[in-house]
């Protein structure tokens, strides 16, 4: 077993510097690497590019890095729900590259899988396709999209072991699985770091080869953005 375990978030983020490009897993606040984000705030790295489906909310998630003005550019598919983000974007302080969600996921997966680029129909005929190669396949137009290049990928999983194997829970899997191995160094934080050999090899979502560093995360808040419930007598 090749041991990927590090003792804490400080060790896990060794080598993180200003001007780097980071991938951060999560959809909304679901499955975000909370420990890595806190450490990025503490280290105060500046002018970073963040690839993340969303930009957090005011006061939590990537919203913390935005407030601290550490982010130079965001690459996301949806950035509502964050006033500070909107303010920085409209004032020109923050560069934003909006990318269709499926394209964003595939640009991660392509980087993970060693494809330099791929064609997708998403965005053809829109602003998103401007300046990009397009091509007809079977009578339908497609846009050429390049794989991402990133220095660090920060992902969060439910369970993991020292070999770097990961298991995700529910919809917290989202972009986390696609970002593993898509950057030079993948750092995984887990809710539960289990003994080697306890995870069933049949049920591993990410094999350890895609992960360089893994650590036991702590103090997860796991905030809910839209707590929505039904009444006890509601049938549906």
């Amino acid at each position, binding site marked *: 077993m090749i041991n990927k375990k590090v003792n804490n978030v400080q060790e896990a983020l060794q080598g993180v510097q200003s001007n780097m490009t980071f991938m951060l897993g999560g959809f909304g606040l679901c499955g975000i690497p909370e420990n890595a984000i806190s450490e990025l705030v503490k280290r105060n790295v500046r002018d970073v590019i963040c690839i993340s489906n969303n930009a957090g909310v005011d006061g939590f998630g990537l919203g913390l890095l935005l407030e601290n003005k550490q982010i130079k550019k965001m690459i996301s598919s949806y950035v509502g729900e964050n006033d500070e983000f909107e303010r920085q974007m409209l004032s020109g302080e923050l560069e934003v590259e909006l990318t*269709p969600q499926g394209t964003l*996921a595939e640009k991660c997966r392509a980087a993970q899988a060693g494809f330099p680029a791929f064609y997708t*129909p998403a965005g053809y005929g*829109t602003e998103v396709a401007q300046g990009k190669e397009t091509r007809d396949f079977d009578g339908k137009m497609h846009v050429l999209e390049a794989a991402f290049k990133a220095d660090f990928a920060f992902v969060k999983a439910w369970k993991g072991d020292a070999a770097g194997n990961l298991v995700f*829970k529910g919809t917290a899997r989202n972009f986390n699985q696609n970002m593993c191995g898509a950057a030079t160094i993948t750092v995984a934080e887990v809710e539960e770091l289990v003994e080697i050999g306890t995870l069933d090899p049949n049920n591993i979502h990410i094999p350890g080869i895609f992960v360089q560093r893994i650590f036991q995360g702590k103090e997860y808040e796991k905030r809910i953005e839209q707590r929505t419930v*039904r009444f006890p007598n509601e049938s549906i």
Partner: protein
Amino acid sequence: MLDKIGIAKRIAQEVQDGFYVNLGIGIPTLVANYVRNDIEVEFQSENGVLGMGPFPFEGTEDADIINAGKQTITTLPGASFFDSATSFSMIRGKHVDLTILGAMEVAENGDIANWKIPGKMVKGMGGAMDLVASAENIIVAMMHANKRGESKILKTCSLPLTGVGCVTKVVTNLAVLEVRDNAFHLLERAPGVSVEEIQNATEATLVIAGEIPEMKM
């Protein structure tokens, strides 16, 4: 005239047995509540769940189980979770049978705009561009006019596009319209609304063939 729930109820009639359905945020989310219970349908949410169930009872919410609107949800027996790339393989690969989403504008050639108002609002397209570029059966759920009273059913979209030539049907508070051969064909009127009222509220020219029936609600 219909309210938002009425629009959702009318669209629910379009959902057929055996369909995998992706619902957008807003009115489309309500559609799930009104699908006939004698048919089998599975709802896909692009953040990574197939077999989505209703909202959880208070106290059972799980931060790790949400829909694309970031609302807490439950899953039904037979449900599955997956990563974002797999989710969009379902969508791009045309495995999802029906896409229902909201819009700010729809044009008579099937163009749709719903992600950006230049200089005013930029929230992003989320999964909408992937959905409209690949789905073959796209129903738009929206009010016929915007908050300023202007028609959202247009000859040409004025806002930045989400997709080109893709919308197949539009259900509004006033009418059911089919988009075909570069024109809006009026299929049904909302209860108590006349053909004339619909045309007057519509910037695009409607194709009106024969007697137009009232929606059966």
